[in-house]
């Protein structure tokens, strides 16, 4: 029987040989100057960049990297050598993959996705820290049967584990008609083993983006992934030597490998585990990586998991929908006296879903009544905003919008599985009670489907509540509250980053508003959101307070000493890496460019989102660059120290549409400018040419032209 060492060394040699072949093949068509890159990333060859610090941009440099890879394939009989050979195997695989992308080719087509974009990696940030995605699995090989393979994937999906697929399993899933893609958290990498490099790159980019681990810090990368990236591998029989070698790389990074292959396989506790029974892969794997799944048992006929949050239900697959833009609909959380409700009292008032014809637009009103000694009316919108996630997490249910502008679609599959109106209530009840247990003692839910009821309640109760809340929100400014809050939720990934959340500046991930932070504090007063009393003003204009500095210093464990809340030049707020948008200075205009992470194209700074985003993150201050939430763009405090929103000269069109209305309102209030958004360029006007941008804003009479330079 070959030893573990012999297998890893052999597999590593084999992958290296394949990389040499790929290079030899590519040499026939490309010169050393040929650019080499994976799409939408600022981290070059992610694995090689992370482990060596070398920025590979040309084919010649890629070839040179083979020398380093070779140097890592040492052959002492020590774990160190199988670890470095394992990482070298992943890097060889990355070279093979890079060759596929040479010449600007797009080597992967449906269902394969290949390299993951930085924006997507960043999007995973929030769910990873909140535990909404408790971990990643990389499934390699071909399952004994298509059914077993898909069952395994679905089982992970229901536990919200992000699934990467490599090899035959992808084709098996496709044959079984499984819906795959980033949104549903199933990411088919490629049909060959070398595509595994793309997921190794994801793990290492998490360390670069969120952990501020420096590129080339080999042991720092390994320590970060071991401690913080909850990934693991499932490999189907037969596991060949190359897969064993990749497994050694995974184990080096802290990711256990679970396989059903008992042939020539060496067991290593918590690292290399033989589980002959595929149906026990999930539980075995979760235990091996110490992943605890928070289980909320909900009595519904469809699956419930954050994996279904991004699921799209198209009209053709729709049983019916509640569409607030066409008929009256609403959702509302209302605080009531405890004696007035029964806990877990879920009522359907009106006809059930099976009484409507297929494709019908129905009226839907969801009234959630909560009671609790510590409940405050400020928490109502916080709870209500969570409906979107809660309802979306049901398989076959799609929810968009909020308040009385909601759209809820129920798929035919969900309906066929028995989904009915009361199940909205079951999900909301279960989630509210578990997520808000500190403030909600009792919760009852009324689901209305009778048009007359919904219309009446919308106008009589819901609208009044919304108006009251709007008044409250409008009155919430940084000036008239006494406390700000910290948010250190991201510290499990980004250990030295601290957000300071104020009424006019929500967390940069876009997920934590001041009200959310307040509620989080009330729910757990030793949790990630702590009160920062607004005292000891240093400079109100740029947003500096002694208390804020103290809090930042304390909660960053001394990594940061001072922060200005309203400046992007002087001690700007740091980023964890999961920001919705990045804004950066555009020198020619003296303004700033803002780009959201969904936008893959170029910007007038000469850098796309991925590259701009890589300028900051990991809890580091980078003057001139700042990560932030979308809603912050229309805040009066948005870079107020540098003149405010009038500095914005360019945004993607999609972002302009999302924030335009409120941004116009702010500009009108602050500067008396009408339709300010029209003065801001987008990619349809100028993509990457700063001179053209300057022409455009000059033509529009953009106010930035009248401002002093920022630096």
């Amino acid at each position, binding site marked *: *029987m070959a*030893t*573990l*060492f012999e297998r890893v060394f052999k597999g590593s040699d084999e992958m290296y040989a394949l990389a040499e072949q790929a290079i030899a093949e590519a040499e026939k068509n490309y010169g050393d100057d040929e650019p080499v890159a994976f799409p939408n990333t600022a981290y070059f060859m992610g694995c090689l960049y992370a482990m060596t610090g070398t920025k590979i941009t040309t084919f010649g440099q890629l070839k040179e990297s083979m020398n380093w890879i070779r140097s890592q394939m040492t052959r002492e*009989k*020590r*774990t*160190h050598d199988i*670890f470095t050979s394992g990482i070298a195997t992943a890097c060889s695989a990355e070279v093979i993959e890079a060759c596929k992308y040479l010449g600007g080719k797009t080597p992967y087509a449906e269902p394969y996705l290949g390299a993951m974009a930085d924006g997507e990696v960043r999007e995973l940030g929030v769910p990873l820290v909140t535990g909404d995605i408790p971990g990643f699995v990389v499934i390699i090989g071909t399952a004994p049967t298509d059914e077993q393979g898909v069952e395994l994937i679905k089982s992970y999906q229901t536990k919200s584990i992000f699934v990467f697929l490599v090899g035959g399993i992808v084709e098996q899933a496709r044959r079984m008609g499984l819906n795959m893609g980033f949104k549903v958290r199933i990411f088919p990498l490629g049909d060959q083993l070398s595509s595994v490099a793309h997921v190794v790159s994801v793990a290492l980019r998490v360390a670069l983006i969120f952990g501020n681990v420096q590129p080339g810090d080999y042991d720092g990368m390994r320590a970060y992934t*071991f401690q913080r990236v909850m990934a693991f591998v499932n490999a189907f029989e037969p596991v060949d030597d190359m897969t064993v070698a990749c497994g050694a790389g995974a*184990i*080096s990074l802290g990711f256990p490998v679970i396989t059903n292959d008992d042939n020539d396989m*060496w*067991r*290593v*506790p*918590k*690292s*290399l*585990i*033989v*589980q002959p029974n595929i149906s*026990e892969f999930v*539980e*075995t794997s979760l*235990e*091996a990586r110490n992943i605890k799944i928070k289980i909320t048992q909900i009595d519904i006929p469809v699956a419930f998991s954050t994996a279904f949050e991004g699921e799209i239900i198209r009209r053709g697959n729709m049983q019916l929908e509640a569409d607030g833009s066409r008929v009256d609909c609403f959702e509302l959380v209302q605080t009531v006296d405890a004696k007035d409700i029964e806990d877990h009292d879920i009522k359907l008032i009106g006809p059930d879903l099976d009484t409507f014809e297929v494709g019908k637009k129905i009226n839907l009103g969801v009234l959630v009544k909560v009671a609790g000694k510590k409940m405050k009316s400020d928490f109502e919108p916080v709870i209500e905003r969570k409906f979107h996630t809660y309802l979306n997490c049901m398989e076959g249910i799609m929810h968009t919008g909020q308040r009385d502008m909601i759209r809820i679609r129920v798929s035919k599959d969900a309906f066929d599985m028995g989904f009915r109106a009361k199940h909205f209530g079951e999900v909301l009840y279960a989630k509210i009670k578990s997520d808000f247990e500190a403030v909600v003692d009792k919760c009852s839910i009324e689901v209305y489907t009778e048009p007359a009821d919904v219309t009446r309640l919308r106008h009589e109760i819901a609208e009044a509540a919304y108006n009251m809340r709007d008044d409250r929100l409008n009155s919430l400014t940084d000036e008239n509250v006494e406390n700000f809050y910290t948010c250190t939720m991201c510290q499990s990934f980004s250990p030295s980053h601290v957000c300071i959340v104020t009424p006019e500046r929500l967390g940069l991930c876009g997920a934590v508003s001041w009200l959310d932070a307040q509620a989080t504090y009330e729910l757990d007063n030793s949790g990630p959101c702590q009160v920062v009393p607004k005292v000891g003003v240093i400079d109100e204009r740029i947003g500096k307070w002694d208390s804020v500095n103290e809090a930042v210093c304390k909660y960053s464990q001394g990594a940061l000493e001072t922060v200005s809340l309203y400046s992007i030049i002087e001690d700007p707020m740091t980023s964890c890496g999961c920001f919705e948008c990045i804004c950066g200075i555009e020198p020619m205009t003296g303004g700033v460019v803002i780009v959201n992470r969904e936008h893959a194209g170029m910007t007038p700074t000469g850098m796309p989102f991925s590259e701009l985003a890589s300028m900051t993150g990991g809890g580091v201050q980078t003057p001139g660059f700042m990560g932030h939430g979308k809603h912050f763009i229309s805040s009066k405090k948005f870079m107020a120290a540098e003149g405010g929103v009038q500095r914005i000269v360019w945004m993607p069109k999609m972002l302009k549409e999302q924030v335009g209305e409120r941004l116009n309102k702010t500009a009108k209030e602050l500067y008396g400018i009408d339709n300010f958004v029209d003065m801001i360029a987008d990619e349809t006007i100028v993509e990457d040419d700063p001179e053209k941008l300057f022409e455009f804003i000059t033509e529009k009479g953009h106010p930035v032209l009248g401002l002093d330079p920022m630096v």
Partner: protein
Amino acid sequence: MKKFTTVEEMEYDSKRLKETACAVCIDTWETRAENQKNHCKFGEGGICCRICSMGPCRITPKAPKGICGADAAAIAGRNYLRSIVGGAAAHSDHGREIAYVLATASRDGAYQIKDEQKCISMAKEFDIETDGRDIYDIAHELGNKALLEYGKPFGTLTFLNRATKERQETWARNKIAPRSIDRECTEAMHMTHMGNTADATALIRQGLRTSLADGWGGSMMGTDFSDVLFGTPKPVNTEANLGVLDKDKVNIIVHGHDPALSEMIVLAAQMPEYTKRAQELGAKGINIVGLCCTSNEVAMRHGIPMAGNFLQQENAVLTGAVELIVADVQCIFPALGPLSKCFHTHFVTTSPKAVIPDSEFILFEPQNALENAKKIVSMAVENFVNRNNDLVFIPERKEKATVGYSCEAIIEELDGVTNSHVDLTGTYKPLIECLKSGVLRGAVGIVGCNNPRVRPDYSHISAMKELIKNDILVVVTGCSAQAAAKAGLLDKEARELCGDGLKRVCELVDIPPVLHMGSCVDISRIVLLASKVAEQWGIRIDQLPVIGCAPEWMSEKAVAIANYVVSTGLDTYLGIEPQVNGSDQMMQLITEGTRDMVGAGFVINTDIEKLTRAMIDGIEAKRAALGI
């Protein structure tokens, strides 16, 4: 990475303390060792016979035989066997004391049963009825039956049943299965009397048998009955090196080996009246620290800090901050008597087996244990005012340590890395998987004393560092454990010094790379660990990539230990040459001859770097033979 204390730093502190010795005009082991050079070659070679009064006879090329005709092998062999007897007797007598304590333990007395489960499981080994009986009844019968192991007329030792079947057969086949403990010691003394055994092989064979009576008899009782009485050790955090002495507190040092004394001192010192009295006298409280194996015993059961090992005993007193040092048996320097007189320090001896000039003798017996312990603590407290602060210098250095890895604790830690979907708990399987796969290359038990013949502590520490760098797990006991503790190797952070394989294992299991398994009697834990690993792996114990090492051994106990470790089937690497090299036959017997009997032998090299290399090569050779 944290900075670990180096041997150079330890030596620097010692040198500074020698200035105090100079100031009070007292010598220390360094000067005495210098004075003893060059050692008698006949003594070193084991070829001086003083057994009858016709001699002494010494073997030279011109006089190759003694007056009676005994040759070098006979003389060296007899001397060697007598040193094994000395060690086996000492350890076993320690075990006997603990067995007596067990036989007289009572619910309302000073000594109680702390680990009832272990008491019951041991009682079953002795065929004692346990169902429905009071635990103290069981304990008393167990103690009595255990005491019979010292002198029972028939059969072999009960604990031999704990060994693998293969080992029991090997011992029986070679006629080295020990009968009663005292009988093996007596028989060995008889064999070596003038006019008896002159055949070196027969002397070696009796050496193995006598040593087994220690390792699988007296020592094992010392270990297991201590667990029953004082609790089976579990991982506990403590600190090590002289920096644990506290200049603001009354410092009491417990020194020696037998936990029966130290446990009582710890108990007494925790009584509030003494702390109160200490405070009245201007101290901030009472600080108990340990020296030598007593330190290991109280550290692993109470987290009592470890002041140091064998060659540190004088240094501890030289700090000038020790109010009282109380000792029981073994490894107590007579030098402590005159040394303590240079300071205010009370030097209290307690055992009729270790009566030392210039000490205050207080007889310590189970029936007066707590009373006397209180008296001793009180003496220490009242002495605080007599401290001469001009003489006080405490080196600040100390290291964190996690100690107390009994076999039971190791299994519990290993359970933490099992997977409930594929593994059972309560076994060494995770360790075996690491060894089989090669993530860990092997394991070494490093044990034994300090010895001025080599650079003290350096041999222990450098060997350990090199082994853990090569993914070899190290388990330690005795003075070796203390050396490891002082160097920070018992700190979990020492995983940073390991090869990637051992480092990962330490991270996953959450252990330091060097596991503290106790005092020198607790080498019985190591042989049990190896036996169970072999059994659960399904191979012979001598096939395991597991070895023993005593890089700085000096005492007769160490000779006995080395022999029982070899008898158990584990090669043992020695950094000090046994005193038999005047006979080629004896040298051949201890390094090679025993391999034919028990499948293991000594590997000797006084160059620690070479010895360490030999250990790594030895482990790799065992792996190669297994095809792993």
